[in-house]
């Protein structure tokens, strides 16, 4: 394994999504990921594009922009791009680098292979998606309460 991959494994070990993965799992993820360095202002994904990769922010920060409006901020350990792969559709938002940084990118194919082959990763992914649905449901519930 290269030093690069060792670094990636160390970084992955600190990410919630991979908390239940073994070190061997992390090595597999590191092997199949592309480590991409980016500069501030780079679009990491662009709203409306076809989704063909999953991204994990290893270093730096990014902003989520939907229809020109800032809707969120991503810090190291955050991940994005999975929805367009799990349910093929256009990217729902643009993610732009707020600083220089590094992402680990998995192609659509490897993302699906790793979900299939690494149960700890797929369980964590399902859990995270469920949390997002719940949070989104809470927002909807709050909004309906306010409007009544």
């Amino acid at each position: 394994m290269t030093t690069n991959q060792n670094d990636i494994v160390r970084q992955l070990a600190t990410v919630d999504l991979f908390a239940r993965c073994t070190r061997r799992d992390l090595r597999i993820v590191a092997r199949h990921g592309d480590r991409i360095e980016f500069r501030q202002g780079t679009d990491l994904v662009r709203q409306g594009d076809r989704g063909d990769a999953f991204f994990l922010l290893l270093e730096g920060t990014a902003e989520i922009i939907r229809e020109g409006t800032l809707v969120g901020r991503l810090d190291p350990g955050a991940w994005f791009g999975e929805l367009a792969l799990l349910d093929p559709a256009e990217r729902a938002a643009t993610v732009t680098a707020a600083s220089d940084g590094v992402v680990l990118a998995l192609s659509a194919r490897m993302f699906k292979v790793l979900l299939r082959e690494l149960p700890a990763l797929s369980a964590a992914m399902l859990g995270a998606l469920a949390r997002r649905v719940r949070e989104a449901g809470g927002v909807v519930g709050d909004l309906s309460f306010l409007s009544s």
Partner: protein
Amino acid sequence: MMMRGLTRAALRRHRLVLAGAFVAVPVLALAGGPVRHSLSVGGFVAPQAESTRAFAHLDEVFATAAPNQVIVATATQGDVLDGTNTAAGLQLVGALGTADGVIDVVSPWTIGELPDDVANPLVSHEGDKAVIALRLAGDEDDQRATVEELGQLYDDQGETFTLTPTGAAEVSREAAEQAEADLLRAELIAAPLTLVGLLLVFRGWRAAAIPLVVALLTVLATFTVLRALASLTTVSVFALNLTTALGLGLSIDYSLLLVARFREERGAGRSVEAAVARAVGTAGRTVVFSALTVSLSLLALLVFPFPYLRSFAYAGIAVVAVAAAVTVVVVPALLVRYGHRLGHERPPTGIGFWTAQAQRVTRHPWPWALAVTALLLAAGLPFRTLAPGRIDDRVLPAGADARRGADALRSDFYLVNFTPISVITPWISPTDDEAVSAMEVVLLSLPGVHRVDSVHGFSGTGLSIPPTAYSERFRAGPGDGTWFNVISWHEPDSSEARQLVERIRHLDSRIEVTGTTAVVVDSVDAVARRAPLAIGIVAVTTLLVLFAMTGSLLLPLKALALNMLSLTATFGALVWVFQQGHLAGPLGITTTGQLDVFTPILMFCVAFGLSMDYEVFILARIQEARDLTGDDKQAVVCGLARSGRLVTAAAVLMAIVFLSIATSGVAIVKLFGLGLALAVLIDAFLIRATLMPAFIRLAGRANWWAPGPLRRAHLRYGLWETEPVELPSRSTPDTELDTA
């Protein structure tokens, strides 16, 4: 990582890569162009075989051996033993005897005194022809040089005799010359046909030119490698045929794969640079996997002790490695430079043949699988009667000198035989009359023995000729023993003659046997003894490489079984034609009732490698579709739809190249070309289009099964295609692939 590095280099330094390729063409042409002058016409005998050692023994101790160059001298006027003709004959024999490289000459004028009631065996029935038998020194290449020198001498005899040379050295020389001339003709036939095919497949001259550029670099680079290798070891001139055919064929296959993927990615809306990167990450890796499997198949030829077979391994591995390297380095650079003019892959309109075929087969897999398997097994039935032998003059076209000379020997002479079984008995002194006579009696008592020549003269059925000058060859120095020439009724490569050699060898452990039949016996034995190891190497390496690629246990076994089935059918067809003689007339071949022992194993390794080529092409797309969709049935249809047209095109173009090779007048080259063309077509249309999808459909999820630890090992260490991820705001070559 290596592929990404290559891609980056191709993108960033494409001008440098193209300039390097441009400069490489003349440099390689100068370095590799004269390769054939460095190659050997021989390599058909195993250096350590008993027959080879016995030949050397005869050469060194007795300064003779069975003749390897025979001249049929036809008198332009009168009987060859007439006074004028005898004088001219003696003059000719004197000139031959003093020529460089000639160590022994036997002729009707110098054979010595024969009894009045015994006809001179070296004179024809009609008396107008004489046989002059020469033993040429050295290996096949030395003999070829001597034969060419002697050609000048033959030309000077035009007034008295018409000379027709034949014999092993002459056959070897003429076969090599014919093969070289045929190679040029094959190239001239293949080039325009291939170009038309490429234009049809690539739909544009720029794209069609890419495989030709790859082929040119590949063939010239391989010639250079072979020339360098020839300075270290024996490399057969026949390896050039494989170099040209595989060089052109694989260049087409690999370029087609890469360019088709590039166009597909362009069709999906990607920039030229992004499309190149994805094409190299996917199809480029498939090319490397494929090259690995083809090379490993050819590597198995190295287990055989014959320089002839090993030469095909050197040439094959070199040509495959170079074709793959040129494809993943030069083609991406060409695509970056000219890719914007190559167009996109149009989305298929309607259902194509391969999609329809995949749907048919996956809907009713059992009937398709059973029908095609039965067809292939039926085609393979003649293979059960395979009778391996060695080539003789009948490997040449009917009009060839060596063939005409040998035909004259067969039809116009009585008692003449230049393919004796030479039996060396180092413990019998030529002066020990009792022991010599006893051995003569033992040899004559063996089934099929017609005559025994020894220091005592000529003995046989109803024949006893006292010693002549000729008989002195059976003597050497004190303590060197003597030797016998055993003449059989049977053809030298017949099974009866081979049994006779075995019987003679069993007479005494000190006996050394050589001669044409003994060489055949040793060759067949050596091939049969090493074939299981070669097949085992091919099988194991195939299983390992396909496991590394797919992570499956079943798919590699399936590939192995289907390849064996495909090759069985091909070999069956070849036995039917080349051994049993069906279609011999239209194909212009003369059958001997046997198939050259080297060709099946040679074809096995080459055809197996090419079959794996297509297996890898299709399996890569099926696996990609399966990884993305998780749907086994859909993955088969999708994988075949995406790769089928490509495999068809590649196979048809490859078959054109091999069929061009098959236009050769030399039977073994014809056998090789026709056999490989057949193997490629059977593989593409019956195996890949029908049996492979049927099997994958029937096996369902079991296709991809492997125990947990192996699955993890595959994920960790396996060979994977990787589509590089691109960031949307990076679109220039310098930044697009700034990945680590």
